């Protein structure tokens, strides 16, 4: 029996204005509750404020107005250091362009996800290996990013986001640079994670992908329209 899920992320009238000239209101007075185990997709045209919203939720960007509560904590009052550590422990990021470090192997790239957690290198590499096996790259541990296909690189990036065992996974168009098959593959990994209980928020242009999500947030000019 499923108990009623609690709200883990609560956006309260948040806005973001990029100082001009002219000033641009990228996110305009959005309020939104995200529950534990939600699978949320954010859709919208280019420039509709999707990435800004995701970055604010992920504590990568500051708010101009409003407040964000994550797991009941008001993060808008946290110091920069606290935010950094909070990101490191609670949030896993997946980027459209993978953002792997070119000089490190797949395993080392994934292990970097634990670098700022005070965990020893051997332990980091051990955990990285495990997660890479989970995403089906157990045979690519020693490969450099340039030796991997786009889909494989994104799976390494997903593994890097997962290695710290975050409560939330935020993905900014993770399939945007991939062919259909690789994109579907990433998507099914994310859905599988969601089944295991992770809260996932993903930006996508792909309406087919969006349809598979329980909750869709549509943005137009920085406002939620659906």
């Amino acid at each position: 029996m499923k108990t009623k899920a609690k709200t883990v992320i609560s956006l309260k009238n948040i806005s973001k204005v990029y100082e001009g000239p002219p000033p641009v209101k990228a996110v305009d007075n959005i309020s939104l509750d995200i529950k534990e185990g939600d699978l949320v997709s954010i859709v919208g045209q280019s420039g509709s404020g999707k990435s800004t919203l995701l970055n604010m939720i992920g504590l990568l960007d500051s708010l101009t107005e409003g407040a964000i509560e994550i797991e009941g904590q008001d993060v808008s009052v946290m110091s920069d250091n606290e935010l950094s550590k909070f990101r490191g422990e609670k949030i896993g990021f997946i980027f459209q362009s993978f953002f792997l470090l070119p000089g490190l192997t797949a395993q080392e790239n994934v292990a970097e996800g634990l670098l700022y957690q005070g965990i020893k290198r051997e332990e980091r590499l051990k955990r990285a290996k495990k997660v890479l096996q989970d995403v089906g790259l157990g045979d690519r541990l020693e490969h450099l990013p340039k030796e991997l296909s786009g889909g494989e690189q994104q799976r390494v990036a997903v593994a890097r986001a997962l290695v710290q065992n975050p409560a939330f996974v935020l993905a900014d168009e993770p399939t945007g640079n991939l062919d259909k098959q690789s994109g579907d593959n990433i998507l099914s990994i994310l859905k599988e994670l969601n089944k295991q209980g992770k809260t996932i928020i993903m930006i996508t242009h792909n309406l087919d992908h969006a349809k598979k999500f329980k909750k869709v947030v549509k943005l137009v000019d920085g406002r939620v329209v659906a």
Partner: protein
Amino acid sequence: MKQKLKKKDLFFVALYGVKSRRGRAALTSIGIGIGIAAIVAVTGISASGRADLLATLESLGTNLIKASPQAGFFGTQEKLPDGVLGMVERIGPVEEVTSTTQTDLLVRRTDFISEFEGGGISTVVTSSELLDVVGGNLTEGRFIDKGLSNIPVTVLGNVTASRLGITSLAKPTKILIENEWFGVVGILDELKIHPDLDRSVFIGYGVAETLFNVDREPTTIYVRANPTYVEDVVEVLAPSMNPENPDQVSVSRPSDALEAQEAAEVAFTNLLLGLGSVALLVGGVAIANVMVMSVLERRMEIGVRRSIGATRKEIRYQFLLESILLSGAGGLIGVLLGVGVTLGYTNYTNIVFSIPALEVLSAILLALLIGALSGVYPAIKASKIQPAEAVRK
């Protein structure tokens, strides 16, 4: 909140930055490398020179004093009073004393050479003690000892020998003094602090008197004094030798000349050190420049690190350490290069090799310091990049 990035990990993160751009790192380090190499080589060569000088002074002694009559108003030499040797010997701290008599006898290799081409070689009449008192050595043969004093044989100063083209005494060799043939029985090693003796030939008092009618009055007196009282002996020497007119005696310490020469070299060394410092400064600016560029290029990396939990401070330390690693590598290369240059130079000039460890250490520290200073601005710049900006598509 406590920093969680371990020191060892920080080091590897910084090292990654250097290693992933090897070519650029090498080129960036060169500036610092050249500066440090220049500084190490200059201090090394100058220290070697000093060490060599000290060795020379030690072997020759700084307690040697030379006295000769003051050159007269028209360039004529006053004579030293009769019995002057005895007077000098009676000064307490004087340990050894000997004298020579300068002549204007013409020296030639053979009689085919015109009498007008003496070649600036002077003939010095000497007793057997001279070599001991001035601390000279023979490269070959023997000095004019007591048994040779009355025989027409001669010993050549080092410069004289090469001017006359006599490098070996394997075959019996003769030279012409005035119009008498003298057999060469020895060649002196370079005396360094007595360039005038290097340019002389030496003959004994007996033969000088018989053949050239040279009287025994000394023109130069060499004194070895007790090292503790050298200054005192210098002070009383002139009045003792010529109580009536002490100002007619010129007293000098040959080692002073070497020390003065060394002092002149110090000024030159400082100039070179200044140039080395300029190279370091330029190297530091180059590192700062490259690091700023690197920060701009690596926004993605900074963004990723911030998103996986790096604080500003951890980013700052990363870039600061990277800058220090770059300059440290340059410093290390510079030290090796500088030591190499010094080693080459000392080998080539055949002087004592000496590099003060403290100077090498401070050169490396200096390089690290420059790296740290050059890294401050780029590191702050890197830490101020907003994570959201850094991960923007």
